[in-house]
Structure formats: C-alpha cells, structure tokens
C-alpha cells in the first residue's frame, strides 16, 4: 500500500505543486483582496457596492449567451457533417478547424479590425462598387462576431468527438424501429451528442463572459463588459485591487452556478427536455 501510494504521489507531485502555486494561491489572494479594504481590514463593502456594475454583468452575460447560441447553431451541423465524412476527409477538416488556434488569440482578434474598420476591407469594397459604407466596427455585433470566431473550435471539437463515437448500429436500430431522419436525430443522435454540446457550451460561454480584449478591440470603448471593468480597476493601481477582486469573485461564482446547472442537464438520464 505504502509503496504504491508513494509512487502515485511522486508522479502527481509536479502537477500538485503547479496547481497549488498557480491556481490555489491566486484564488486565496483574490478572496483576501475581495474581503478586505485597502488597508487590509475585513469588510464586505466591496461586495455590497457591486450593484453599480449590474449593467456590465448583464451585458456580458447577454453577449456571451448570444455568442454561445450562434456558435452552437454553426458548430453542431458542422460537427455532424464532419463525423459523416470519410476518415481522410475528417482529418483534413479537423486540421482546418484547428489551424486558426495555432495563431495567437490577440492577433486573430486584431485581424478583424482590418476587415471591419471604417476604411477596412468590407467598406473599401462597398465603396468601390458604389454602395454606402456600413458601421461595422465598434458595434455589439462586432464584439459578438469576435467571440464566435475566436471560440468556435471549442464548440466544434467536443461535439465532433462525441458524434464520431456514436455507433452506427444504433442509427440503424432506430431506423429499423421506424424512425425517419427527423426521429433519428431527435431520439438518438441529439441525446447521444448532448455531453459534447454541454462541454462545448461551457468552453465557449466561460471565456466569452469574461473576455475584455475582444470588446476593447472590436467594440471600441462603448461596450464595457465585466472583463473590461476588472481590467480597468487593476490598471488604476493597488488601491483598486479590492474592488477588482470582488468583481472577479462574483463573476467566478456566477460561472460556477452556470456550470452546475449545465451539469444537471448532462447527468439527467431520462428527462430529455434540454432547450
């Protein structure tokens, strides 16, 4: 017993040390700042004063939710058709989905500025064919577009991975029992792909709700998301760490609640009424 557990501990120790230093300690620091004032005394004032940022919270959640739904609607059929292709074609499409992720996230977002800007690609084209330029950059639409573009691989991959594992004999069985295409999807494919959908939603919603870079670059300064608010306070200096930590804490708790609700859906074996 001793020997084995010692061996296990040894193997796990680099990860345990890593997570202690870079996950647990920062969380404790955040909690400390959130519950103290600038001179280090315990207070709940940071948290009780957060009502002011209701709007930023609401917009963040709204934008992230819209981006997640759009991402899901685009990624689900994409993942489905990918899983139906020949293995060699599947690999190629998989690569095409992955390639943008090899590029830095900031650069990918930045590239959209040159496309959407008032003198960018689209508007130059419209002008050249004699149409009026459109207001594209610095709009909520641009922010949501940025979120969808940046995070869509995180939706496609888990759904694809679950779909490609669905045993073909289950689809044949459902056909055999009288299911047409629609019933086959509703009663077999969708329920079986749900774990992939849940993890895709999580992996797109969480980074979307807390992003600040996308909204700054593509939304101008008009849309202040909760991520922007946190960044803003940190930039003001150490006196504002407490309020920034308090906002972070609340955001984190909200995300955890969302994840918890989502996991309830993926556990429920029988109730097939998600969405």
């Amino acid at each position, binding site marked *: 017993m001793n020997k084995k557990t010692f061996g296990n501990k040894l193997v796990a120790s680099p990860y345990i040390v890593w997570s202690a230093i870079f996950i647990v300690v920062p969380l404790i620091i955040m909690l400390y700042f959130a519950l103290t004032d600038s001179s280090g005394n315990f207070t709940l004032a940071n948290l009780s004063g957060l009502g002011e940022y209701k709007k930023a919270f609401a917009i963040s959640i709204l934008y992230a939710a819209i981006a997640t739904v759009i991402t899901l609607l685009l990624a689900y059929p994409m993942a489905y058709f990918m899983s139906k292709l020949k293995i060699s074609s599947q690999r190629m499409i998989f690569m095409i989905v992955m390639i943008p992720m090899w590029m830095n996230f900031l650069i990918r977002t930045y590239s959209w500025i040159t496309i959407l800007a008032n003198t960018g690609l689209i508007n130059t084209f419209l002008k050249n064919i004699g149409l009026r330029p459109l207001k594209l950059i610095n709009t909520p639409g641009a922010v949501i577009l940025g979120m969808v573009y940046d995070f869509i691989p995180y939706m496609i991959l888990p759904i694809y991975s679950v779909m490609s594992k669905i*045993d073909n*004999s*289950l689809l*044949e*069985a459902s056909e055999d*029992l*009288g299911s*047409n295409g629609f*019933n086959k999807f509703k009663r*077999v494919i969708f329920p079986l792909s749900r774990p992939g959908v849940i993890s895709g939603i999580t992996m797109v919603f969480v980074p979307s709700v807390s992003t600040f870079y996308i909204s700054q670059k593509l939304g101008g300064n008009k849309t202040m998301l909760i991520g922007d608010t946190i960044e803003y306070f940190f930039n003001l200096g150490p006196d504002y760490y407490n309020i920034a930590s308090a906002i972070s804490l609340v955001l984190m708790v909200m995300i955890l609640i969302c994840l918890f609700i989502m996991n309830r859906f993926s556990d429920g074996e029988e109730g097939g009424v998600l969405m």
Partner: protein
Amino acid sequence: MEKENIVELKNISVAFDGEQVLDQLNLGIKDKEFITLLGPSGCGKTTTLRLIAGFLEPDCGDVVFEGKKINGVPAYKRQVNTIFQRYALFPHLNVYENVAFGLRVKKLPENEIKQKVTEMLSLVNLSGFEKRNIATLSGGQQQRVAIARAIANHPKVLLLDEPLAALDLKLRKDMQKELKKIQQQLGITFIFVTHDQEEALTMSDRVVVMDKGKIQQVGTPQDIYNEPKNAFVADFIGESNIVDGKMLKDYRVEFSGQEFRCLDRGFSQNEQVDVVVRPEDVDIVEYDKGMLKGKVTSVAFLGVHYEIIVDIGGFKWMIQTTDEHFVNDRVGLYIEPDAIHIMKKSEYSGLYGDYSSYSEEIDHLSDVEEE
C-alpha cells in the same frame, strides 16, 4: 407449395469495392417459418439480411415482400425488425424506453405503449427491469431487451443477425430454446443468421447453407445433414469422410479400391463422384472381416464416444465409436449401403473430408472467435 413466400430474393448481386459478396442469389422465404442462413464468415449471410432490412440496396435483382418489390423502400418503412449482433440498445434510455422506442416513433397513446411494453417484458422474462439502465444488464438480459424491443412492433418478419454469438455456451442453449418458443408463440417468420451449424440444425425449419456469395443448399436440417449436395455442405455440417469414388452403375460405387452397394442412382456410367460417409455410420469390425482395412493412428475420448482416426491406404478416416480401440490396432471397417452418400463433383471436391491434418484444438478454435 402450401404457404406463400413472404420474402423473395430474385437474382440478387452485391459487390463491395469490386468484390462479389452475393452472386445471383435466389431465395424464397415462407410465411411463419424459421429459416437459418448458415455459412462461414464472409459468405454473404449478413449482407442478405441487411438487404431484407433495407440497410443495403442490391446492385441488381429484386427484393420482394408480400408480392411487392421493395427495392428503394427505406428501412423505417419496412415491416421487418432486426435483432443486431451486438444488440445495439440505446445507452441513453432505460429498459422500458428501449422497448417503447418503436411504439413512441409510431406515436401510440401512452397507455397502449405501457401495456405493450409490459407484455413484451414478461414474454422475455424481464418483468421488473423497466427502470434499469442498459449498462447494468448482463449480456443475456441485454439480449432479451433487444428481442422485446424488436417484437414490440409486431413485425411480419424478424431478422436475427448472429444474436447468440456473444453469449456463453449454456446461456446460448437456453436462448435457442427460448427463441424457438417465442417464434412459435408469435407465429411470425424468423430469418436467423449464424455460423454455428449445431444452432442451425436445432432451431430451423429450413437451413440455407451459403458460401462465397452463393447458396450451396436449401433444405430441412435432416436433408442438409443426410443428403449434402457437395463437399462444402458435407464438411460444414457435422463431420464427414469425403473420398473420391467412381459410380460403376446404379447402386454400385467404387472407392478406396473396393466396390460397395449404395442407394444412389442416376449417374452416368463410371462417373467420378465424391463419396460421403459420416463418422458415426462406420462400424469397426475385426481386421479380416472389414470391407476396408487399416491401422488406428489416433484415439480421442470425447465422453459420449471415442473419435478414432484410421489410416486406409494413406487416406485418414474419422470414425466415432463407443468401443475402445488403441493406436496401432489393425481394424476393419464395415459400411452399410444407406451410410454411403454420393455427390456430384464440384469446385469443392478434394478440399474437405480428409482427416490427415486433423487436430482437436484447431477444429474448436472457430467456436472461440466470437467470445
């Protein structure tokens, strides 16, 4: 023909990637019969089943159901149901919902579904398992759910694709009896696919022996065993000694250098033929009194009988006897006329029926592959 054919396959050919899987296949399946497609893996038996189910379309030829051509009719519109080799139960549904699946698709009222599912589960002895998760069931129980799920839809024809292959021997024997019972109780046509000849003989009204995409023989289990059409069928069904012979005239055949009386006629004079003698039909007698004379080269005790290999002029015969003999004994063989079965020469002549390379282990390996 006392009963109508419910399913007919006419001149069916199927090729996958240039490889001929079914070759000009013709078969009529009668209403309410238990028919078995029997053959080694790759013989086209599962392909035949998938054609009837609608998962596959033939390259040419017609699939006919109740007198109507059903080529191109999708699987979900056909009045047949399938029991899949690995059951293909839905892992996201419990036992009740699996059985109810086809009924829900048909949008039957809830109380009717409930009554039907309860009835089906009691038919397969799974009452009380309604709420159980599929993953918690044993192989035999999953098998029963698959049966209940398929027959809940009242198919006219039930297709069974090696449904017992994954079960252990004892369970398999029980399920054979139970399937047969269910078939008689429901009075529907069963088309059963297996590579296990014993299973085919015990369960079927008729057996279709297939090899290389062609039907080798169709008949009752007795016909197939007693009157095999060629060396392949003789060897695949049970044990056989198959020797080269010459038909001297009606009721007279010569093999192993001796002349024998037999019950076969209608061959041309001096026609080369294959002669089949089943190991249990040979009597061992004293050396001097034997019609054939040889030396025992191996003896295996199998409980019910001994399996003895006797070398007769270089050809090894297998003989099953309840008397004990020893290696190197010199023995005589006595063969009754009705134990001799004459077959026309075929592409399979000379490939089977000699036990010179025979070994227990090799012969029984084929039973293990599916475990």
